[in-house]
Every structure is written in C-alpha cells, then in structure tokens.
C-alpha cells in the first residue's frame, strides 16, 4: 500500500518583518531585515552585552478576530498563533463559522473534527504572562507599596520601582495559570477551531516549529488525521527585558560592532551571535493529499520527509562534530526516499552564533557539498525561537511555490564556500530541506517537494 501523502494548502505568518504571509515573503525577497535598539527602559535593569533585537510590528489582534474579552485570557504567544492560524485557514479556503460565541469556538466547513489535529511548537509558551503575574504578585503586597503618579524620586532605585508599579496590570490575572502553560498555544487553536484529534505542543526550544511540522507529517501519514494545523508561536517581549537578559548573559546574542543593521549576520565570519526576535508565529494547513485534491485546494508544496535526533551532549552548546544534526538531516532524506544530491535548497537554521554556523555549515558541506542553495531566514527575521522552524518551513514552501529564494542579509565573508544566496533570486527548485537545532540538544529536519500531480 502506498504511503499517505501530505500537502501544504495554507500558510499564515507573523514575524518581525510583517504581519501576514505576503508581507513577510515580500520583505524576505526584498531583503528588508528587522533590527532595532532594545527599549531604553530595559537599560535601567542591566548593562546588556547586546543592544539590538528584532521587535514585532504592531499586530491588530482585534482585526484578526480576537475580541477584547478573549485577549484578557490569552497570552500574546497564543494570540499570535490565532492570527497565523486564521490567515492559514482562510488561505486554504477553509471557511470557519462561529458556533459558540461565549467560548469563541468556530467550526470548519467540510472538515471532520475528530480527524483534525494541532501540532504547535513553542519554547517558553506564556512566559510573559508568568513574568507579568509574578511582578503583580510581588509588587502588590497586602500593605500597598506607594506609587507616585508623578515620580519625584531622583535616586535610580526608587525611580525603577515607580516604573514597575506604574506598569502593573490592574489586577492579578485570574486566568494566569491557563495562560502560562506552554500547551496553551496548541490548546487555543484546538478549542477555537473545534479540532478534536491529536493536540500536541512540541517544546523543543528553537527546533520546536520544525518538529511540530514533522510530527504533523507523521500523524497524517500514519492515518490518525486528515488535516492538521501545525507550526509554532513565541512571544518573549516582556516589558523589562528579563528574557532578553537570559540569552544576553549567556553570551549568545549579536553584538553591535559597527552598525546596528549589520549585527545580525548568519554564516559570516564576523558574526557575533543571534538577533533575538520579540516573537512570531507561523501556521501551515497540512492535509492528506487526496483530502486536499478532493476539495480542489491549491497546494504550495508536499512535505515528504522528517528526521530528528538528540545530541545528548550539552544543554547550550551544539555537539561540535555535528554528528546528530547530520543524522537528523540524513533521516529526513531517507524518509523522503531521496539522495543528498537531489536537494536543491537548504533553508538552514543559521542563527549567527559562532558555534551553530560553524558546525551547521560543516554538516551541510559534508552531506550536500556545495551544490544546493543555502540561506538563513533568521538573517531577516531575527531568531523567533520556537516559531522560527515554522516560519522557515513556511518560507521553504513559498520558495518551492514561487521558485524563488531570499538572500542571506549581511553575508559578506562566508564561513565556508557553500552555495549561499546573497540576494534573492529565481531558482529551479524541486526538493528542499529546512533544518533546526535547539538548546537542550534537539535536532530536526523536514524535506519538502515542489507540488506535483
């Protein structure tokens, strides 16, 4: 019996370079990268090694169908997931109708809810809700701390306390417990769209989005589901830069050497670290091939292979020989039934850290040689952590559909002589790989094919 095939039929995306798939893809092809100074008020709490990040543009959550009441009980990571999922479903031509206004539950026309699932990646889920709740808890003791509406304090410590108190929410959010949990991202989508099949959150840090897409492939292929929403969502823009500090103090972030807009430079010899993104989300509608064909869906690309492995080496450093990343990529190719020489395009993890780009480029060279085109979407978006793999899967599918690849921004002196894409270009693409690695030691790779018959 032949294997069940998996089609990508819808894409939704929010990232630092745009609030829709079209905006993100246009910015990618135009080489418009996101970078900005970190907020001034963070500097009150720490002298940071890195002074830049990739903030999100303003996202109109209400326009995306999230009511103000719903927004009160959702972490921003879950709201970003809804924005991307809503766009992806509309893009796939799947109409949603409201069946329970109180709970905000919609039903998708023509979809068997019991055979539809959700696989979403996130690294830290509702961490900003956790931080805000903890601030609210600590700063509102039973005997209230004094907050001056017009701060008169001249000493920095009191001024810092005034800033914290002024920023507090009016009350400790009674929904905090359900907003903090990482599985809220996938549960939010399952509830919102009445999807009652497998509902799983892949908490694999920076490989989460890629793993979510891979597990969606397996679910459909295995026959558990006919349709899946998969991808990733992340939001780490806490108001005082605590999450940024965690990465900064570990010396993983990009430093500004000369120009801020040159700090983020994956695969360049002068790279210094990754550019942290405030957040992002991408959702792919994946369907069993005949399911998609029967309803006349437009198909972006076919997902044909998945591989994963674990370094079992270090929580924060890649295994230096890259053997396990290589094994994940090799498994994905074997799963797809293709040889490395077939691959036309590698959307690399490409974070811009010294170690990642060194190890990953060596793995790419060893497996693929210098034939396939290679780029790093993080050179545009910064690092969206648990959403990054999903954003890169979406970009890979768009590349296969449009037969175009975006450039690696700021790549001037490549770490290795691979076929790096410097500026966006047309390309004849049939097979593409998107790969990710993560803190913890997780590696994941997916293979996609240009949509065929």
């Amino acid at each position, binding site marked *: 019996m032949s294997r069940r095939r998996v089609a990508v039929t819808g894409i939704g995306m929010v990232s630092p370079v745009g609030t829709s798939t079209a905006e993100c893809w246009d910015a990618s092809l135009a080489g418009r990268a996101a970078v900005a100074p970190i907020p001034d008020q963070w500097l009150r709490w720490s002298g940071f090694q890195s002074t830049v990040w990739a903030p999100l543009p303003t996202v109109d959550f209400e326009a995306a169908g999230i009511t103000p*009441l719903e927004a*009160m009980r959702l972490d921003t990571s879950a709201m970003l997931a809804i924005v991307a999922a809503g766009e992806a479903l509309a893009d796939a031509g799947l109409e949603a109708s409201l069946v329970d206004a109180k709970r905000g539950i919609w039903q998708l026309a023509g979809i068997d809810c019991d055979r539809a699932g959700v696989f979403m990646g996130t690294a830290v889920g509702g961490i900003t809700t956790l931080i805000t709740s903890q601030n609210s808890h600590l700063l509102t003791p039973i005997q209230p701390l004094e907050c001056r509406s017009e701060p008169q304090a001249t000493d920095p410590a009191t001024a810092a306390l005034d800033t914290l108190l002024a920023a507090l929410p009016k*009350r400790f959010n009674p929904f905090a417990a359900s907003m903090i949990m990482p599985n809220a991202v996938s549960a939010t989508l399952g509830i919102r769209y009445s999807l009652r099949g497998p509902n799983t959150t892949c908490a694999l840090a920076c490989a989460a989005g890629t793993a979510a897409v891979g597990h969606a492939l397996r679910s459909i292929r295995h026959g558990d589901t006919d349709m899946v929403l998969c991808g990733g969502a992340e939001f780490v823009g806490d108001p005082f830069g605590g999450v940024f500090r965690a990465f900064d103090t570990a010396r993983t972030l990009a430093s500004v050497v000369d120009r801020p807009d040159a700090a983020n430079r994956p695969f360049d010899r002068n790279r210094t670290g990754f550019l942290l993104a405030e957040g992002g989300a991408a959702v792919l509608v994946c369907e069993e091939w005949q399911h998609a064909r029967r309803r006349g869906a437009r198909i972006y690309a076919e997902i044909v292979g998945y591989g994963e492995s674990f370094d079992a080496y270090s929580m924060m450093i890649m295994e230096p020989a890259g053997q396990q990343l290589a094994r994940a990529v090799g498994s994905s190719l074997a799963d797809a039934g293709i040889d490395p020489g077939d691959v036309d395009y590698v959307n690399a993890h490409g974070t811009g850290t010294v170690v990642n780009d060194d190890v990953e480029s060596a793995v790419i060279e060893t497996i693929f040689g210098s034939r396939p085109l290679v780029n790093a979407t993080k050179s545009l978006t910064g690092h969206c952590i648990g959403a990054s793999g999903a954003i890169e899967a979406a970009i890979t599918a768009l590349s296969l559909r449009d037969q175009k690849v975006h450039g690696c921004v700021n790549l001037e002196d490549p770490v290795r002589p691979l076929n790096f894409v410097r500026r966006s270009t047309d390309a004849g693409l049939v097979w593409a790989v998107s790969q990710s690695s993560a803190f913890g030691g997780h590696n994941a790779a997916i293979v996609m094919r240009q949509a065929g018959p």
Partner: protein
Amino acid sequence: MSDPASPASAAVAARIDVVIRDVLGLESAVVPAGSRLREDLGADSVDAVMLVMALEREFKGKISFDEAAQLSTVEEVVDYVSLRIGEQGLS
C-alpha cells in the same frame, strides 16, 4: 435598590446589558432584569470571573470577586455597580 426610572440608572443598566451579552455570547436583545445569571443565562464559574473583569474594564475600576460572587441576577449586578459608581471609583 436603584431607581430604574432614573436616566443615570438606565444608562448603567444599558452598559451592563452589553457587557453581560458580550461575556455570555448572547445574541438576544435586552436581557430581562430578573434573569438569573447561572440558571437562566447559563453562566459558569469561568464566566463569573470573566464578567468581573469585563465590568472592571467597562467601568474602569476594581470589583471584588467575593462581592461579585453574591450577585445572582442581572438586576443585582446593576444595583451593585450603580451603588459603587461615585462611591468607590467606578465611572
């Protein structure tokens, strides 16, 4: 009890009607004042929390969960909020 005929009270009742219909997802026109939140309108414990938060948002102030838990009809909510307006910072 507040005087339902007074314009101020009627305005508060109208605002609360919108909030309750929003929180409970009710499409019908004005919810009768005597409606019981749980038995007649189907409010569950999560809705009760949501109602307090939505009222706080609408009337720009803080409402005690414990006090709100004592309110069982729409009329009682209107009376409670009307009493609190001016007295304790709701507007």
